[in-house]
């Protein structure tokens, strides 16, 4: 536990936040996708973050963060009447993806900010470690 464990901590954080960015990209790419039923409609993916715990001799300590799973957005799936669409159901409706572009954009900014913050932590720690290595010279 110390400066050297920061690489593990920020490494897992960078990994988690880039997974979050992946999901956002996936959501935005699928924003216009339509489906033939409500059940098969595309639902926006959200990461479920959880702290990575490591058992130490003095109790659990946090040793990073992980994406524990993916939760589907519970926002309503909109349906649109498009009888000419090949995927339309018997009543002529298609079901739109429940992706909210504004929400995705704000999440993207937040995820990239988090990513940057962790990079900053890593750089600072690297500086400190290098200075420590050259102690006394």
């Amino acid at each position, binding site marked *: 536990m*110390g400066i050297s*464990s*920061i690489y593990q*901590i920020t490494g*897992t954080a960078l990994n988690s936040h880039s997974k*979050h960015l992946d999901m956002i990209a996936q959501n935005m790419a699928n924003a216009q996708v339509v489906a033939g039923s409500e059940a098969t409609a595309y639902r926006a993916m959200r990461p479920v973050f959880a702290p990575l715990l490591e058992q130490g001799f003095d109790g659990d300590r946090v040793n990073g*963060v992980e994406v524990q799973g993916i939760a589907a957005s519970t926002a309503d799936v909109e349906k649109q009447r498009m009888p000419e669409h090949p995927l339309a159901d018997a009543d002529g409706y298609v079901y739109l993806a429940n992706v909210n572009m504004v929400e995705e954009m704000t999440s993207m900014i937040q995820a990239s900010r988090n990513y940057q913050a962790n990079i900053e932590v890593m750089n600072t720690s690297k500086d400190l470690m290098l200075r420590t290595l050259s102690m006394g010279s």
Partner: protein
Amino acid sequence: MSLLDNAFGISAQALAFRSQRSSVLAANIANAETPQYFARDYDFKDALARAAEGYDTTLATSDDGHIRVGDAGDFGDAQYRIPTKAASNGNTVEEEIEQAAFSENALRYQTSLQFLNGSIRSLKLAIKGE
């Protein structure tokens, strides 16, 4: 406590404390988005008191040849930070506060390092005598 440890004073322990605190703060920053995660930090006053205590409490030795082991590295438990604003997902990490604390901690780490370097320089000067 060996002669060398005495020469370096509390700076060595301060460095260890700063190093440990930096990883706790890094964990906070890493978990800025984690639901139900509670930010933690050390209480400096408590850690200082423990370090000062640890200064003369060492494991008992029955022979002069034994290496004395001080209990450096015991800085108490990290306490939960009291958030200034509430988040809907129960997360108490406030990014700005954590980042400020992290850079403050880095600065103080460098300060301790500077003090240690100073002590090492003086020791070297005394050894070489030039």
